């Protein structure tokens, strides 16, 4: 495959890199090391800039007013946008805008008017409520939230766990079991306003990630109108699954940025720090760690770009997306771990961003399908004959 960038991609990458270095990184010098948001005035000013650059709403489809980036260019931008302290979970603090829940582009016109368009205008926020206390890796079988029909309404009861943004959301996309089928054919997706009686955000779930916390939800006989069903009754799993596959490429790309930054920091440190009469960079133990970092970073980048190019060309990309997700999350974790080792004591302090990346990258090996599920997906394709 040819991984060289087009002139346009090169320009976009350089523009994004300059933006991160000149606009985002200087602001972080004045924020708490675990901060998850900019001062609202800075945020508004930078949104104006990204709008002026034509990059606002990166993931909004072109027919809805987005910039119409292909997956490869989007992945290249994700690598650049994550090259700052908060970049892994909050690339550029959201000043490039969001696209809302991807599933809503498949909604009815009435549903789009009510939830999608207000989201694109920044007037509403949504959250994605799939995982339950009974499990997240195998959602088709784990979902125990029940929905039954009562007249023209559905009544939902159950709970969800590790749901991001539910406490600030205006609506939630909730997956519930609506038939006796214990697997993927018995799940329906409902769009539910969070002020619906019976919708409760019970607690914050604290994790290794200091910001962008998760929440636990409880639904007590929540009554939802029939017209709030997204797609078909008992057809909700396909909606959830589609999202899980498509998310993997930008999710993987975003892991590479912190690894690149950590490697650059480690190289600078190794070239300036002396121990036992010579620079760290002159010691083979350090040289090998830096070489192993480079191998990991390039391996992750190639896997992400291969998956993105396949997606852009309309080929099957499920295996490549799973591989990209697995390789990028694991390789970047190893890189940041080695960079901490090279830095020594200062590497584990909050004076540097390494400790934050180290904590947050650990979650990336679990979130959006853990490494083992990615291997399972690849094994199905390889052993199932897709590559013959």
């Amino acid at each position, binding site marked *: 495959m040819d991984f060289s960038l087009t002139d346009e991609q090169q320009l976009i990458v350089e523009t994004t890199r300059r933006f991160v270095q000149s606009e985002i990184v200087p602001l972080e010098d004045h924020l708490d*090391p*675990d901060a998850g948001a900019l001062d609202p005035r800075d945020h508004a000013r930078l949104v104006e800039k990204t709008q002026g650059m034509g990059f606002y709403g990166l993931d909004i489809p072109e027919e809805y007013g987005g910039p119409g980036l292909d997956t490869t260019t989007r992945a290249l931008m994700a690598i650049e946008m994550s090259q700052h302290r908060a970049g892994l979970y909050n690339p550029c603090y959201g000043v490039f805008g969001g696209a809302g829940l991807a599933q809503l582009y498949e909604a009815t016109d009435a549903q789009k008017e009510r939830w999608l368009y207000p989201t694109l205008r920044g007037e509403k926020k949504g959250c994605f409520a799939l995982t339950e206390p009974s499990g997240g890796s195998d959602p088709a079988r784990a979902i125990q939230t029940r929905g039954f029909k009562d007249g023209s309404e559905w009544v939902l009861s159950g709970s969800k766990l590790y749901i991001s943004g539910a*406490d600030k959301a205006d609506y939630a996309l909730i997956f519930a079991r609506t038939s006796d089928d214990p697997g993927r054919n018995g799940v329906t997706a409902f769009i539910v306003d969070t002020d619906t009686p019976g919708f409760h*955000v*019970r*607690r*914050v779930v*604290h994790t290794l990630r200091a910001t962008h916390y998760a929440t636990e939800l409880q639904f007590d006989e929540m009554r939802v109108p029939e017209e709030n069903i997204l797609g078909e009754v008992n057809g909700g799993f396909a909606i959830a699954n589609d999202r899980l596959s498509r998310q993997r490429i930008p999710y993987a790309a975003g892991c590479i940025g912190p690894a690149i930054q950590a490697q650059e920091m480690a190289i600078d440190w190794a070239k300036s720090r002396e121990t036992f009469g010579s620079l760290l960079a002159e010691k083979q133990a350090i040289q090998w760690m830096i070489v192993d970092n480079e191998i990991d970073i390039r391996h992750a980048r190639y896997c992400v770009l291969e998956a993105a190019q396949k997606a852009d060309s309309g080929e099957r990309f499920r295996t490549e997306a799973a591989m990209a997700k697995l390789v990028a999350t694991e390789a970047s974790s190893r890189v940041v771990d080695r960079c901490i080792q090279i830095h020594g004591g200062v590497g584990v302090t909050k004076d540097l961003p390494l400790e934050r990346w180290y904590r947050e990258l650990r979650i990336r090996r679990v979130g959006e399908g853990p490494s083992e599920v990615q291997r399972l997906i690849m094994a199905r394709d390889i052993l199932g004959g897709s590559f013959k």
Partner: protein
Amino acid sequence: MGIRLDKPWETLDAGTIASLPAQLGVYQVADDDGNVLSVGYAGARHLFGIRSALDDELQFHGIQATKFRYEFTSNYHSRWDELLMLHLCDHGQLPDHQRAEEHRIGRLSPD
């Protein structure tokens, strides 16, 4: 698991503050009647962690602030947001000088 900060109040004065470890964490500051005046956190930019943050509170509130309680945690951001949301749920609004945070935080219904 209880999510409210319901440890006993301690006296807010320079001596008590000086005896605390310089850790990261969250806290509440209250008046004599137990009315919460501040829900705060001690983050990595506080030179001596919770000691520095409580010193700042003492300066800000003066003699009105007489009590505090705290919890050490490295997850001070998410725990702080959780305590703010709990306060909003219990009292309908945040302490006066923190009202601007109401537009940033989410909503909990813990009970």
